[in-house]
């Protein structure tokens, strides 16, 4: 029996100088293999990050292999991406060319919906794969289901979310979180998640309404400018040929400002969402919590951007490290684990890695 209420249950003990040789050799080998090594590179990176992550009294261990990731990617390509490409290219085009626009529209819609479904399946299976390859005290996690039900759920909730003009997005996100984690287990214990949308809805509204406010602000500024111009203050501006450039600079400035501001507000929402989501997670007698504030998230993203830009892109190889260390630093767990009753998972161990997710380029968890 362990009690984790005293010291922090999660700790990351990595050191970027220790990680650097892994990152740089990964980069080298990925380049000389034209990217094929990326699967093994990702595996080596995870082996390091997991092994430097302590939960209560012992390290995590990543047991996935590069081959699994490659097979998963290959299967995803074979089963989904290539048929999709074929339908998209050949069937859709020939339908349009032969004048069957209605049929083409239907096929397009079906493709679009199928894409949502597969995205859901991919998210589910990536989480399941990661849990099944994560070892703690010799015990792993997993899931008994294949994620097809989650795929449907993801499909109709996404469609519903867009029909409600995006207002249901917090509910979609939290309910999907609950659904996928509810299917996951570690050892004999099932995860439970009961994240609610209400606590994050106000912050979501902030994000939702920001563009509207912004547009009004721009209009107000423009009106003010015209009024001021009428009063003759344009004289102080550069005259003649420079005016278009000034206008262009102003528009570009607004454009950048808009996305920076919107990005920041999105983080305000996401920080609250992630705290709610992780905080609603339970495994046996363990409760989890995530403490990163908006400020922490901004620091993470700003740091990542500075790292990548400042090193002309090479810093990218440390982004995964930074993200993981951020994640573990802010992860907490409270409660008890009975080691004697924590027995090996009986879930089926999936054979391949997160292929679909790779193919669709989506993040897990």
């Amino acid at each position, binding site marked *: 029996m362990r009690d984790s209420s005293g010291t922090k249950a999660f700790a990351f003990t990595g050191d970027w100088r220790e990680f650097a040789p892994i990152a740089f050799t990964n980069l080298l080998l990925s380049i000389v293999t034209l990217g094929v090594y990326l699967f*093994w590179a990702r595996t080596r990176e995870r082996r390091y990050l997991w092994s430097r992550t302590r939960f209560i009294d012992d390290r995590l261990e990543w047991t996935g292999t590069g081959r699994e990731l490659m097979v998963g990617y290959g299967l995803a390509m074979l089963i989904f991406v290539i048929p999709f490409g074929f339908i998209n290219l050949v069937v859709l*085009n020939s339908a349009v060319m032969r004048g069957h626009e209605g049929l083409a529209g239907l096929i397009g819609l079906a493709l679009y919906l199928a894409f949502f479904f597969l995205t859901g399946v991919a998210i589910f299976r990536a989480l399941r794969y990661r849990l099944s390859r994560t070892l703690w*005290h*010799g*015990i792993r996690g997993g899931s008994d289901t294949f994620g097809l039900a989650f795929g449907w759920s993801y499909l109709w909730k996404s469609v519903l979310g867009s029909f409600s003009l995006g207002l249901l997005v917090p509910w979609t996100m939290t309910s999907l979180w609950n659904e996928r984690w509810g299917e996951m287990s570690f050892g004999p214990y099932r995860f439970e998640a009961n994240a609610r949308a209400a606590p994050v809805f106000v912050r979501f509204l902030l994000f939702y309404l920001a563009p509207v406010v912004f547009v009004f602000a721009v209009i107000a500024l423009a009106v003010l400018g015209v009024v001021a111009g009428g009063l003759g203050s344009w004289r102080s501006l550069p005259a003649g040929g420079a005016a278009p450039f000034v206008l262009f600079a102003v528009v570009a400035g607004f454009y950048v400002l808009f996305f920076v501001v919107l990005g920041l507000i999105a983080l305000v929402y996401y920080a609250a969402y992630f705290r709610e989501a992780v905080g609603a997670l339970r495994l046996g007698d363990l409760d989890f919590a995530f403490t990163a504030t908006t400020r922490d998230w901004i620091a993470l993203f700003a740091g990542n951007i500075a790292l990548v830009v400042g090193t002309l892109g090479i810093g990218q190889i440390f982004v995964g490290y930074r993200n993981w260390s951020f994640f573990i630093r802010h992860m907490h767990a409270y409660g008890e684990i009975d*080691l004697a009753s924590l027995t090996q998972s009986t879930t089926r161990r999936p054979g391949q890695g997160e292929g679909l997710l790779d193919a669709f380029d989506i993040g897990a968890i």
Partner: protein
Amino acid sequence: MRVWHYDGVSALRRAPELVAEGDAFVLVERDRSEGPYRFADLVARDTVDGDAIYGLKGSSGWRIGFPGGVPADLSALLPSPTRYGGFIDRIGLWPAAALCAMLATIAVAAFLMTPALVARAVPRSVERKLGDMMAGDFGDRACAGPNGPQALAALVARIDPGDPDARVSVVNLPIVNAVTLPGGRIVLFDGLIKAAASPDEVAGVIAHELGHVRHRDVLESLLRQLGLSVLLGGLDGHVGGYTNALLASAYSRDAEARADGYAIDALAQAHISPLPTARFFKRLAAGEDGGGIGRLTAYLSTHPMSQDRAARFIAAAKQHHDDRPVLNADQWGALRDICSTDPNARAPGLRF
């Protein structure tokens, strides 16, 4: 030898004694004994905090850890750890990187050369069929105004005597360009005929395209285009007929230079002055045809223009004597009006 141990069944951390017996061992802990296990069945995991950790083949959670690393007397029996994975560990990082870099270079080179090799391997008859199939896109637009086809045939016969297979046609599209289909079909757009100041200019363009036919550049370019679109995830839905691919397919500079060389030889043998062709290229490069920039970019985009190209034709003119025009005034008039006087030629319009 004391080790720590997870049996992969329960999460309890054990601290058994590892007792080696030849190439196998048992784990003994007070009243409990596990094994025997063969050392050869162990799988090395990453060393963490100085502990050498081993898993067991066929078991996902079974682990033993040697605190402070592997004891010297067991190290010969234990498998070595994987680091980079597979063969890289066997031959070492740098040799593996060098080997992979070499293979990657070969792969890229092979990829770049494949179109040329495949194009050479395709039989002429297959290429011809392919060209006929693709010509369907233009088929109903070939112009045949009074005496126009005859004038065109006379022009082609001058540049390319003794080749009954050369099939040149004019299509009623207002684009300043010429396209060569696989199988030796050359399609001139009416816009190019209108932009030409003399039949000799048209002759130069046709001679250049004949060069592409002789060197089988067309198929190679098509294959390269196809390969690229597949490689770069060409899933953006642009397979609106083959024409797009053809119009977009630029030849390599080498292929252009070779086709120019062929054209210069052909003009010399036919006693047609290369100077009008040089002028035509110069006009195109300078954008002086009066048809607007939009019309000109078509030819330039598929036939990269440079001062050198025109200069080559000018230089070739020094070897010429007794040049004579490729068509007489009546023939040239018929060719110029080949589309406008053809009631059956479809009205100009861009379908793609």
